């Protein structure tokens, strides 16, 4: 998703040519991801053999850093762009496969808690972003896009809403740039704050899933803390993503009522069209495991396949983040986004701490 600011859309004439066109970029994602894994192992081994106290830097962070360095120095060459843009596919594939690592009872328990927190988070985020947007005199549709992006799922939600409310390309670019820049910052700030607060894996995972907007960055922020936190972050973020259709529909109806967007004729079809279908895949996979369709080793294999898919995603997060391109979008949407995100991060942290006291996460 972050690719949107730096990677051009690549047209192709035939499916075969399209498939061949993505190969170099996918290989680049794999090379960077594997380099991240190698560096984690290398530094850990080196530090241990020399009796150094060196913090464990996870492969996730290495892969993102290498991607960021390439994207913000030499840039992503055209030959790689189509393949690098596939990282959202790897993210969704990883999430569906991750369903195999959840027992359905956990999904229902944590998913239920997540849903309750998500409803509060979305309501407050929408109100807060609308207030801040009006305070800073942003354009009304840009405010709607920022509110949708920060309350649900970042760039996907902005893309879904853009067509539904007839927003300008420029407004969508502004909103996406703000959400992406803040997502990149969250990768470094969320784990640091959580370590400072000694949060447990489940609490932190919930916080990352609720507080970080873009699904790829939320997944990475969770995985940066621990494997278990990464799983919970994906679950919480998935619960949040499930609301995309409802919120976009509400905004579409509002703007149609203002005479500034097309009316929604079939609301059920609209909801289904906007619903992220990979969530159904995630639940189905969890259901299969619940019915013992796979042996323990097979579940471990599916979990590892999910990790490989995420590895490509994390490389893509770095490669798709170009701060120069983002800075061209202007400062005001970024300030509104930053203010809102800091407040939302504080609110979601409070929600998770409260949930931990009530339900003992």
């Amino acid at each position, binding site marked *: *998703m*972050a*690719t*949107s600011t730096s*990677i051009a*859309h*690549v047209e192709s004439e035939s*499916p075969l040519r*399209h*498939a061949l066109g*993505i190969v170099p970029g996918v290989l680049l994602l794999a090379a960077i991801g594997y380099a991240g894994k190698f560096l984690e192992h290398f530094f850990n081994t080196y530090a241990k053999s020399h009796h150094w106290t060196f913090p464990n830097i996870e492969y996730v962070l290495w892969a993102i850093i290498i991607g960021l360095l390439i994207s913000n120095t030499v840039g992503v060459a055209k030959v790689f762009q*189509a393949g690098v*843009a*596939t*990282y*959202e*596919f790897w993210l*969704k*594939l990883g*999430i*569906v*496969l991750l369903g*195999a690592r959840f027992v359905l009872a956990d999904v229902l328990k944590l998913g239920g808690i997540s849903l309750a927190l998500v409803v509060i988070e979305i309501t407050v985020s929408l109100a807060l972003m609308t207030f801040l947007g009006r305070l800073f005199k942003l354009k009304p549709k840009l405010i709607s896009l920022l509110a949708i992006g920060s309350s649900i799922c970042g*760039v*996907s939600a902005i*893309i879904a809403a853009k067509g539904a409310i007839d927003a300008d*390309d420029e407004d*969508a*670019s502004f909103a996406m740039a703000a959400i992406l820049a803040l997502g990149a910052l969250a990768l470094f700030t969320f784990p640091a704050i959580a370590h400072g607060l000694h949060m447990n894996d489940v609490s932190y995972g919930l916080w990352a899933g609720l507080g970080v907007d873009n699904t790829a960055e939320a997944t990475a922020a969770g995985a940066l803390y621990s494997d278990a936190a990464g799983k919970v972050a994906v679950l919480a973020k998935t619960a949040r993503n499930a609301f995309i259709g409802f919120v976009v529909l509400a905004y579409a109806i509002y703007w149609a009522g203002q005479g500034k967007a097309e009316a929604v004729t079939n609301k059920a079809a609209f909801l289904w069209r906007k619903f*992220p*279908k*990979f969530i*159904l*895949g995630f639940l*189905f*996979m969890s259901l*299969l495991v619940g019915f013992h*369709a*796979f042996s323990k*080793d*097979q579940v*471990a*294999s*599916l979990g*590892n*396949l999910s*990790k*490989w898919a995420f590895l490509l995603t994390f490389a893509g997060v770095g490669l*798709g983040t170009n701060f120069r391109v983002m800075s061209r979008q202007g400062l005001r949407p970024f300030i509104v986004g930053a203010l809102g995100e800091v407040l939302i991060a504080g609110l979601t942290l409070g929600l998770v701490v409260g949930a931990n006291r009530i339900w003992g996460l």
Partner: protein
Amino acid sequence: MPADKSSPPARSLSLDTWAVIVALALALAVKFGALKSVPW
């Protein structure tokens, strides 16, 4: 501009649908032994 529009392997199905199809294909491959013990 969005990655969603450029990344699916084919244009007739959505990215989400492709992700689910590929995941199910991998799950079947693991289930029936075509993919044995995937390492990490």
